[in-house]
């Protein structure tokens, strides 16, 4: 392999997104920096309202009209898309970005046949005929285990189930042969069986197409299953990021601990603990760390200043004052050992 300097598929530099709402300005994303290598899957984990979806949409240039990138850059394949013209964004979406959505039922047009909607993106590139696009769609759909795909493509979305539509959306994204797949909670609206299927398709496709994926989810377990790296978001920031094993086995941020302790388990006694309090109001940001009010380990400094990002290893970073050399030693109160999960799986 030639040793040229590899350009990451996606690079975010200190990205900030704000919304102009009736009740005030909402600081949805506050300085997110990350880079995504080719073929890598990054899971974005966090509560509702922490900015995951907004981050996803700003990467695709599809923010709602009242939202705006106020600072930072989005580099796709080394190309800076911040402030790019609509046609450039369109080109990027047409050729490089595929997207998946939380609720496939509403993301399909109810009165247009599914097949037409799936092949639409491919046809826009004008590289193949309608017939050819349809054939390729059919092929891909049967790969995604939709039986009788050619016939089903003539159906309307209401005739498909949610899981099927999600696979359809995946097909629509993959047909374009994108470099980056933004999967915004693609498993949230599905039942467990469809979830599992979806995850395995995602995994296979990443391998097969060399696709880079940003996988947004609430579900740590799903993240553990597909992701190479996990980024935990809180209050519009990435508070912890690292390789999947690193984040899950040696988490450093109290918020990540909280997320882990909210997982129910078949093997543990008692209720999951969860995190006290509510996500912060992103309109009026309090002084200090946003997580401080919910942080059992909050120190004085937490109330005064937001924690910078401390490196744990060369690939693992966390934004918590607990990593400061002067902070007291606190160890993670929960253990989510992957082996325990594997044990659960065995009994399924």
């Amino acid at each position, binding site marked *: 392999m030639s040793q040229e300097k590899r350009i990451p598929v996606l690079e975010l530099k200190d990205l900030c997104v704000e919304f102009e709402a009736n009740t005030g300005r909402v600081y949805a994303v506050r300085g997110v920096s990350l880079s995504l290598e080719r073929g890598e899957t990054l899971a974005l984990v966090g509560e509702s309202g922490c900015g995951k979806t907004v981050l996803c949409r700003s990467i695709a240039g599809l923010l709602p009209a009242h939202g705006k990138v106020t600072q930072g850059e989005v580099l796709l394949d080394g190309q800076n898309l911040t402030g790019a013209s609509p046609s450039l964004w*369109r080109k990027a*979406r047409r050729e490089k*970005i595929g997207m998946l*959505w939380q609720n496939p039922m*509403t993301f399909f047009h109810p009165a*247009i046949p599914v097949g037409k909607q799936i092949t639409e*993106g491919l046809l*826009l590139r004008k590289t193949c005929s309608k017939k050819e696009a349809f054939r390729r769609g059919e092929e891909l759909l049967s790969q995604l285990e939709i039986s009788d795909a050619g016939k089903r493509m003539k159906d309307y979305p209401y005739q498909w189930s949610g899981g099927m539509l999600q696979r359809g*959306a995946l097909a629509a994204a993959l047909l374009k042969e994108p470099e980056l797949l933004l999967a915004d909670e693609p498993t949230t609206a599905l039942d467990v069986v469809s979830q599992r299927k979806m995850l395995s398709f995602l995994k296979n496709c990443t391998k097969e197409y060399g696709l880079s994926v940003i996988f947004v989810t609430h579900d740590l377990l799903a993240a553990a299953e597909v992701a190479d790296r996990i980024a935990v978001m809180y209050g519009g920031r990435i508070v912890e990021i690292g390789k999947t094993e690193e984040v899950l086995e040696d988490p450093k941020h109290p918020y990540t601990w909280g997320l882990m302790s909210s997982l129910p388990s078949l093997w543990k006694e008692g209720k999951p603990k969860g995190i006290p309090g509510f996500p912060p109001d992103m309109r009026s940001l309090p002084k200090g760390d946003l997580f401080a009010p919910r942080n059992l380990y909050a120190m004085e400094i937490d109330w005064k200043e937001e924690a910078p990002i401390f490196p744990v290893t060369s690939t693992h970073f966390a934004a918590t004052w607990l990593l400061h050399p002067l902070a007291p030693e606190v160890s993670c109160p929960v253990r989510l050992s992957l082996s325990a999960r594997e044990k659960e799986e065995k009994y399924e």
Partner: protein
Amino acid sequence: MEQVLKWGKRLGKKILELTIWLFLLSLMVFYMARLAPGDPLRAYYGDGVERMSTAQQLQAEEKLGLNRPIYVQYGLWLRGALSGNFGISFQYKQDCTAVIGSLWQNTALLGGLSYLLTFLLALLIGCFCAMREDSLWDKLLGKLSMVLSAIPSFWIALLLILLFSVNLGLLPSGGAYDPGGGGGWLDRLVHLILPLTVLVLGHVWYYAYLIRCRLQEEMRKDYVIFALSKGLSGKAVLYRHCLRGSLPYLISLMALSVPHILGGTYIVEKVFSYPGLGTLCFESAKYHDYNLLMVLTLLTAFFVIVCHMAAQAISQRLDPRMKGGKGFGFRTYE
């Protein structure tokens, strides 16, 4: 075969429905017309009525069948109507169908053209504004539409006549063709310009606004983001997806607006003394020309109801979810 039977059954149902509506309507109009104050003999004999003696008047009433109780008159009328005989027009002293037969094309031309133009323009304006939501253009057109749709159409008609016919002398002030001209196409078109303008100006804003709002609603749906994420441009999404999504609404709107625009046509016909069904309808009501009024009302009603039914059928075809099932649509789909 089964399909044919199903369609036949559905069609039969619709025809039955239509018949019932027409029957009820005819009963109502028949009674209301006869109960309204006024003298039907005047329509037949003109001012001569005043010189007639009471005995002569009674005789005339008997001749026209107006001396019997209303329900008997209705029964007789119904029997005649069912056999295709709608009676004579008091005013024109000829068969009602003959009177209408010479005029209905005029109305069809005016109404049809104004209908098409109204919706074409409304669609264009609606798309234009929806694309530029809350921009200066959108607001400007919104205000303009409010003002223009608040002005009664007969007044606009008078203004236009004043401007274009009286002051500028460019266009004829009324009629469907020049009396001596013989009615060539160009001649007809020139006569249509003013009535058409009035009709379109009076109606287009309302529909443009409805279409704009509907499109805006449609543009906020999730599928728009899906479509955008495929790399389609905003315009393409609007035309291919949003418009498609609001098509059933649009068709229903078009069908429902048939009576509205037809009513407008009738008024405008009167102002421009355009020889059409509207003027005829107005006069037959005014002069108690019962038989003619009945035929005109039923004809209008028939047209409106059929349009409505067609709209229903079309929107069912356009929105696949409307097919099958009853009520809330909880029945399973095939």
